[in-house]
């Protein structure tokens, strides 16, 4: 490649990262601003963090959101792992084309459509079966598990596609039962994919405004709903403080993951 072309590429790359990170940086900087006016710097202050922690509505919504995220990510992990196995290990079964469609379509389906359709399903179910009687945390968990399981299934399927099956075959030859092979050999080997899948499902749930707004009830306000209603009224420094906490948590988790993978590759002498 000519130097001019590679210089141009580096320039575009740098611009791209600036574009991706400048808005996040601006949120963090202005979360420490003493003034309510987001664009005027009035000195360093942690006032908005204090107000954020004292904000009962945000605290309650955060607890609701975390509960929903843990439950739905765990359900999505079980369903998505099963789906990933079905996709990767079973080339032929009745309805496979439909199954592939249903596990990949939720990845791109606009959220307003998913949200509306799930709400109408829950209403029809309530009408016919009497369950779910109230919409709330249960219905949001069901909705989130459904669209997050598609992401888990794709991740697990990709990991299984690159999986060396000789270890499984060896265990089977030595007389291990299939369930034992699954629990002792296969699942531990694909554990990084399972962790990634669970974390992705957890994040998707924590982040979702649209689907949750459709299927929630009056008693289940999630964090994105509170953020959305406060953002709709204009700039709010408390949201900046919340954003900074989000970024800090993600950054710490990524550093831990990076450190673990670094140690692993040093121990085994090969990148995992």
């Amino acid at each position, binding site marked *: 490649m000519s130097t001019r072309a590679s210089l141009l590429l580096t320039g575009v790359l740098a611009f791209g990262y600036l574009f991706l990170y400048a808005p996040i940086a601006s949120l963090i900087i202005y979360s420490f601003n003493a003034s309510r006016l987001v664009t005027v710097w009035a000195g360093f202050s942690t006032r908005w963090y204090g107000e954020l922690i004292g904000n009962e509505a945000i605290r309650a919504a955060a607890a609701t959101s975390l509960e929903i995220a843990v439950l739905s990510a765990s359900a999505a992990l079980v369903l*998505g792992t099963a789906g990933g196995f079905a996709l990767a290990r079973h080339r032929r079964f009745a309805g496979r084309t439909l199954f592939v469609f249903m596990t990949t379509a939720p990845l*791109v389906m606009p959220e307003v*459509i998913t949200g509306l359709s799930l709400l109408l399903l829950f209403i029809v179910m309530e009408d016919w079966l009497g369950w779910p009687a109230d919409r709330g945390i249960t219905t949001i968990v069901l909705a989130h598990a459904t669209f997050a*399981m598609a992401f888990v299934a794709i991740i697990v399927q990709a990991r299984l596609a690159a999986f060396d099956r000789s270890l499984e075959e060896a265990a089977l030859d030595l007389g291990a039962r299939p369930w034992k092979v699954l629990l002792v050999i296969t699942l531990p080997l694909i554990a990084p994919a399972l962790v990634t899948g669970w974390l992705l499902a957890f994040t998707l749930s924590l982040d979702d405004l649209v689907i949750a707004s459709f299927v929630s009830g009056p008693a289940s306000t999630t964090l994105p709903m509170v953020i959305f209603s406060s953002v709709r009224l204009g700039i709010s420094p408390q949201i900046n403080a919340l954003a900074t906490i989000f970024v800090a948590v993600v950054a710490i988790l990524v550093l831990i993951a990076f450190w673990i993978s670094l140690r692993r590759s040093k121990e085994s002498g090969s990148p995992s």
Partner: protein
Amino acid sequence: MRAIVNPRPGARLAIAVPFAWLLLLFLAPFLIVAGISFGESSIGIPPYTPPLVFSDGIVPTLNVNLGNYALLLGDSLYIRAYLNAVEFAAIATAICLALGYPMAYAIARAPRTWRNPLLMLVILPFWTSFLIRVYAWIGILKTNGLLNNLLLASGLIDQPLPLLNNLFSVEIALVYSYLPFMILPLYATLERMDPALLEAAADLGCRPFRAFLTVTLPLSLPGIAAGCLLVFIPAVGEFVIPDLLGGPDTLMIGKVLWDEFFTNRDWPVASAVAIAMLVLLVAPIALAQRAIGRGVGAA
């Protein structure tokens, strides 16, 4: 070998449980939406009358109402919102491709040890809240916001530019939110490409730019297709971005659906809008499914 592939009871369960779940919670709801789009809105809970009613619990009466679709076709507001959504999403897809392709290319050609950290930096913003990232642009783009202040201070402009609540701010936020979905599949195809192909082209006297056009670009077409679909389809149905950063001229169909449902409480019309969107998106979704299925999602 055959012994492992043969479906055992456990394997059958691994297929049946997610299959049944998706049939009930993903496919069946669309049929209900389609049904209610032919219903009539009414006062009550829920606020609609379905087209199929069992009077006395036994006798079915079918009352198909085409009025919701007639409304969509007859009111220019819906048609404009529909066309706007397609146009804005197409523009965002083109910008994502123009910015994402060189970025993915640069990452794929970076030294091996740099690639994963560089890719991680692209994905990282995706792990923080989408809503908050869109909100960040309000502070940057508003009349007395960061960008206008910066431009005024640098002397490039004397009057603040109108950057918020118009097509500009909507496109910025769409590109910002969906750029990683373009870069990931592009990187996956570009990284797999054998550099020997380009060396062979160079040895045969091909100039670098021509080699790019005749070798690299055609080989990365699957990545381009996957990236464009992953950006275009969700962008068409976007609600948060036109709501927070849009203005009166940037109505999109996803926001129309939301407003019909939450503000007007007209569920049958909202259902008809959802069906109209699905009709538009069914072909792109089928294509995206093939692109994802081909293993581009391995990244």
